[in-house]
């Protein structure tokens, strides 16, 4: 079983109920912000804000329409953050949620560097800092409940369920209304697939979604890490061999030249 969320942006009305539900359930503090001339608030994800709604004004011929998108952890099928984490503090649960084990974390922030969606956030102001990010409401999942954001959403824009079922739903919806949706389920294939997927009426790059191919990003690092044990073997044998051969050669040379009066090229 692998959990997922299907977020249909055409159904989102930008009420930010999910944003608040997330803060309430996870007991995250409010952030002091100032008016930036946008409804979008707070301005970005942080250690105190694990999900938020981005606001986009999309020019469509003579009309301008609003499109809202929910940003937050995608719970990648092959999470870069978990591959990167030096101590395995971030890891993927069997049900697919990518979660964090705070008591292992050393605060190196490699996960922040590695995540292709800019999700993990660090407690910069704290002397004892931790990484913060969406946990898929793992404590709710354990109780058989859906995440707080999905539960709250008044329009049903956030659907929780089995990832495979959700994919079928998404395909069916696109097929039924090709005029309404762009032909792209964001997260079906990106970086090897993500558990949180999106449907939209406008191309995703116009909403600030990064364009990624279908290959999981940790693949190069995995190849390099698999080369570590053979490298140990090869370098050890090589150095041992060189040492043995050169020692033998030097010994033989000094024996050969023993009886000879010629000056030897003795450098040492």
């Amino acid at each position: 079983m692998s959990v997922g969320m299907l977020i249909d942006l055409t159904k989102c009305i930008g009420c930010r109920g999910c944003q608040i539900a997330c803060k309430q359930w996870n007991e995250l503090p409010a952030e002091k912000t100032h008016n930036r001339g946008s409804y979008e608030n707070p301005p970005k994800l942080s250690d105190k804000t694990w999900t938020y709604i981005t606001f986009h004004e999309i020019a469509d011929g003579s009309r301008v329409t609003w499109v809202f998108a929910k940003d937050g952890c995608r719970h990648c099928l092959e999470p870069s953050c978990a591959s990167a984490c030096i101590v395995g503090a971030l890891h993927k649960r069997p049900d697919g949620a990518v979660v964090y084990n705070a008591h292992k974390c050393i605060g190196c922030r490699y996960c922040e560097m590695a995540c292709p969606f800019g999700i993990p956030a660090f407690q910069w102001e704290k002397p004892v800092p931790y990484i913060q990010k969406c946990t898929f409401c793992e404590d709710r999942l354990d109780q058989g409940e859906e995440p707080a954001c999905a539960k709250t959403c008044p329009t049903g824009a956030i659907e929780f369920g089995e990832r495979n079922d959700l994919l079928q739903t998404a395909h069916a919806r696109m097929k039924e209304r090709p005029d309404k949706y762009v032909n792209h389920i964001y997260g079906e294939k990106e970086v090897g697939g993500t558990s949180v997927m999106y449907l939209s009426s406008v191309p995703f790059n116009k909403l600030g979604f990064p364009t990624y191919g279908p290959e999981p990003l940790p693949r190069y690092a995995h190849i390099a890490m698999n080369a570590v044990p053979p490298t140990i073997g090869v370098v050890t044998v090589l150095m041992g061999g060189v040492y043995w051969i050169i020692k033998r050669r030097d010994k033989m040379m000094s024996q050969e030249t023993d009886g000879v009066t010629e000056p030897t090229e003795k450098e040492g």
Partner: protein
Amino acid sequence: MESEKRPLPVVTTVILGILIAIGLAVAIFRYIHGLGAATNLSDGRPWGLWISFDLYCGVALAAGGFVLTGTVYIFNMKRYYPIVRSAVLTAFLGYLMVIVALLVDLGQPWRIWHPVIYWNPHSPLFEVGWCVFLYTAVLALEFSPNVFERFNMKTPLSVIRAIQIPLVIAGIVLSTLHQSSLGSILLMFPESLHPLWFTPILPVQFFLSAVAVGLAVVIFEMSLSDKGLGHHVDQGILAGLGSAIPYVLGLYVVVKIGDLLVGGKLGLIFTSGIYSVLFLLEFVGGAIVPLILFALPSVRQSRTATFWSALLVILGLVLNRFDVSWFALAPRLGTTYFPHPMEFAISIAIVSSGILAYILATRYLPAIQSIKKQPEAG
């Protein structure tokens, strides 16, 4: 110990002491108020000066240790014996400096040992952590005879002598892994590292450039301590080290060009704006030019020319490590970063303590500079 006692360079020592004191004060501030107060780092740019300079450059610049121990003990080139001890000292101090920097940079430095019990073998950083840990231990052992000799401790000395070769081989294996794994770290960033630098063979390029700079650092250090500490080293030795550089840099250049060629990215060298400038500076100025210089016998015979050519290799490497870990690495959208003065203060203090430790060690552990021509048997 009958060695000539030279007075401590007073002015230098005092200046270094002040810089270290400033760094200590900043470190205390950072531990009380958190990383956000002491740095300009943010979620958009979580790694900065300390990682680029103290970790990435620091580890590479400490490569002289394994290069020289390998040359002397494995390839049995005894003429380099007189400088192997200072090379080991530099590497040892270099690694200690890296660890100090990590203790400042990590969010929870008191957990720096966690990788020992919590494993993630998929993580390149996990490999880096283990290598720092093990190689520092190896360097401590390789360095220990200086201390044992000073206090005339015969038994531990003979133990170290007995395991010398396995120790050197372990050092080479760990360094090979460690130098290359700093490149592997960046393999996690295929989308954010500029394509002029990103390649699956980054670990190989990291290793080659580390060997080249290892040689250059030893030349640089010997020339400096020649002037500053009256530790005279034959030009023949420096020239000998220099003559190896064209081979290593040559291989590096071929691998790098070949990789860009295979990736169809040669054009990017000239069409990437500021990135082209950075690339050409580090690659032409810091690799191709010194390659040619060190290939010229007239350069290798001149002490000054050797020194400046070595400096070019070092600067090229420093720029390369800054490029891959900072300049050419895209931050999260809307993020800018320039180090906070406190970040500079920490880096400066760490370098200062390294220099001070070097001065003290070469003065109080005279064996380091003993220009003995023969290694003791065994």
